[in-house]
């Protein structure tokens, strides 16, 4: 991984609501064919965690140096 | 021990305190109010909690919450309040949380006759909340019995993890008699889990069918829900789990019914006529029965102390043995007599009902007894 942050999405919990895609300011995330979220541009992640906080299904984890605990 | 002049409702409070009640939540309602008043006076002095809630629904909820932390908890009410409590009586039955609910019966339906006695809540005590559920109900006929049975209510509740209803009535609640305020010999506390928190399943049971619920806040974290749940405590819609749980919570009482059921019988072995009563009508029945025996009439009396589970086995056996006519005095239109007809043929049951707010008088009952023995 070249970015400072790793975005992990667990497809077992993702319900394809697209909220994470909407809130990401850097367009890191995109939709798979089945609607679930995938990480498309991992290097662009700035670690803001908005996707994680907006994920109603606890499917997203941002790892790395975080702004908030 | 010197006897003291105590009111029925006060005797209930004294016994509850002696049994170790540490949490009372209630809402004032005639004719049970003295229980809340005395609790308010006495519990804080013992370092225990009294709270007057906003209604009876909340009172039931609060005592279940307190009981889940391990506290012996109770509430007291009368007809309309008992109706409101039904929701959470069902919750306690379903989640197997021990609580004692005192219902000092007054006349109904609805607000009925607040200051007058009745036994119209007998079926409600059994079937007031929805669904097939277990319950134990005890009924005192004197102030001393109120004291005795309040202990018993706590003991049974803790032992079987079930709500126990102390089914009093206005007469018993309000009259004063000389009683002994003794220290209870036997105090039963609920079972404690034997497993470690890691292995603990709150609703796993052994042959007794009774779960050991750990008090909240002692390292055993689990989930409690009024939904059908499996051994882990979490909801399930599996037909097997549904059937298993509903059967178990009922069977845990049925299986132990012989241990739970208590009654007093007087002169029944050779009886041509058996009086069957619980609560204050026992007083009339006893007077009539004793007088009849003195005259040589073969009249006996069965006083039910446990109203639920109903002593069908005892009564059907007694009927087979004696083929007696059963006379059922009760302060309702026939809730007790109807239940009896499951174990004694309907045509062998004579009903003596009174629902005018007065106790059945010995004279009223005596006339029926004489007619029956003739």
């Amino acid at each position, binding site marked *: 991984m070249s970015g400072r942050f790793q975005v992990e999405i667990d497809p077992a919990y993702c319900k394809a609501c697209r909220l994470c895609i909407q809130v990401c300011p850097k367009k890191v995330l995109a939709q798979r064919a089945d609607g679930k979220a995938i990480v498309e541009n991992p290097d662009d992640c700035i670690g803001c965690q908005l996707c994680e*906080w907006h994920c109603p299904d606890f499917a997203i984890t941002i790892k790395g140096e975080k702004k908030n605990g | 021990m010197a006897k003291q002049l105590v009111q029925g409702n006060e005797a209930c409070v004294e016994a509850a305190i002696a049994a170790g009640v540490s949490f009372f939540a209630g809402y004032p309602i005639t004719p049970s109010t003295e229980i809340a008043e005395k609790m308010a006076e006495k519990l804080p002095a013992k370092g225990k909690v009294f709270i007057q809630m906003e209604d009876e629904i909340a009172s039931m909820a609060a005592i279940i919450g307190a009981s889940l932390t391990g506290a012996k908890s109770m509430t007291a009410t009368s007809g309309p309040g008992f109706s409101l409590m039904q929701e959470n009586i069902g919750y306690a039955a379903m989640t197997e949380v021990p609580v004692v609910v005192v219902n000092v019966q007054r006349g109904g339906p609805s607000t009925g006759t607040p200051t007058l006695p009745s036994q119209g809540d007998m079926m409600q005590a059994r079937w007031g909340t929805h669904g097939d559920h277990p319950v134990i109900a005890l009924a005192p006929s004197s102030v001393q019995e109120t004291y005795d049975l309040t202990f018993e209510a706590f003991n049974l509740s803790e032992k079987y993890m079930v709500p126990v209803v102390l089914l009093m009535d206005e007469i018993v609640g309000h009259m004063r008699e000389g009683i002994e305020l003794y220290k209870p010999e036997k105090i039963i506390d609920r079972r404690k889990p034997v497993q470690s928190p890691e292995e603990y399943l709150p609703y796993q049971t052994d042959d007794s069918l009774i779960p050991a619920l750990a008090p909240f806040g002692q390292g055993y974290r689990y989930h409690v829900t009024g939904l059908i749940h499996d051994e882990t405590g979490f909801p399930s819609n599996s037909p097997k789990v549904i059937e298993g749980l509903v059967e178990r919570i009922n069977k845990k009482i049925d299986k132990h019914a012989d241990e739970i059921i208590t009654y007093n019988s007087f002169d029944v072995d050779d009886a041509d006529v058996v009086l069957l009563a619980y609560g204050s009508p026992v007083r009339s029945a006893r007077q009539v029965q004793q007088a009849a025996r003195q005259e040589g009439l073969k009249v006996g009396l069965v006083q039910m102390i446990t109203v639920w589970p109903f002593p069908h086995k005892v009564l059907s056996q007694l009927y087979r043995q004696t083929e007696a006519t059963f006379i059922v005095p009760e302060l309702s239109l026939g809730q007790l007599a109807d239940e009896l007809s499951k174990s004694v043929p309907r045509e062998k049951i004579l009903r003596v009902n009174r629902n005018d707010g007065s106790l059945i008088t010995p004279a009223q009952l005596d006339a029926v007894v004489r007619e029956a023995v003739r």
Partner: protein
Amino acid sequence: MNYKNYLRWNKLPHIWCPGCGHGIVLGAFLRAVAQRELNKDDVAVVSGIGCSSRAAGYVDFNTLHTAHGRAIPFATGIKLSRPDMKVIVLTGDGDATAIGGNHFIHAARRNLDLTVIVFNNNIYGMTSGQFSPMTPHINFATTAPHGNFDYPFDLVELAKGAGATYVARGAAAYPRQLEKAIGQGLDHEGFSVIEAMSQCPTYYGRKNKMGTAEQMLKWQKENATVSSNPGEKIPLGVFVQVERPEYTKLTGQFIDSVSGGK
């Protein structure tokens, strides 16, 4: 501790619909808990009935899923028996303000130390979309097919009027602010109410042509504000934070004075 360690992962995924705001609110709550490093054994979470109240099953504390509207009186029993425990109520707009309205105002009046998080999705979700006391005037619901002519409660004003000593409002669209509002509620000694605006795309959204979950969240973002000059927007923030003797403390003092500290 990582906030996700407070979840009962074997119970997930949860029953909430895709895009439901309740998971966002639950996450904010757990992050607030994690920041305070609350010990799981010392916390009781009590819920009533409804979509929101299923939250109790997903969190690894002493959890109690009760009857409709009754979470607060159950919690009252726990808190009074174990004043040392942190007792948190997770409830919904219908659960807390309709069937449980009486309990809500009385617990506020007593200033009992409970943290009550009201997941407000403006509708009864579990039973598929009937109006609640917090459904806005002339909104639609299955039991208001011609528009709801009831006027709604403003939960903040209700809690304030009833005597709650901490009252805040947050929204799923502002998870960081929501987390702070809940956190301050957890820190507050007394009856704390946090209204958490939550989107229900399945029922409320569909009935009121609010669009997808994304669009509903966007609506929230645009129509609710943390600004102190909210104008026509729904204000978010802390509205009440006052000190008043807390109920279990008062009970304890009262018991000590009556019993002589026995």
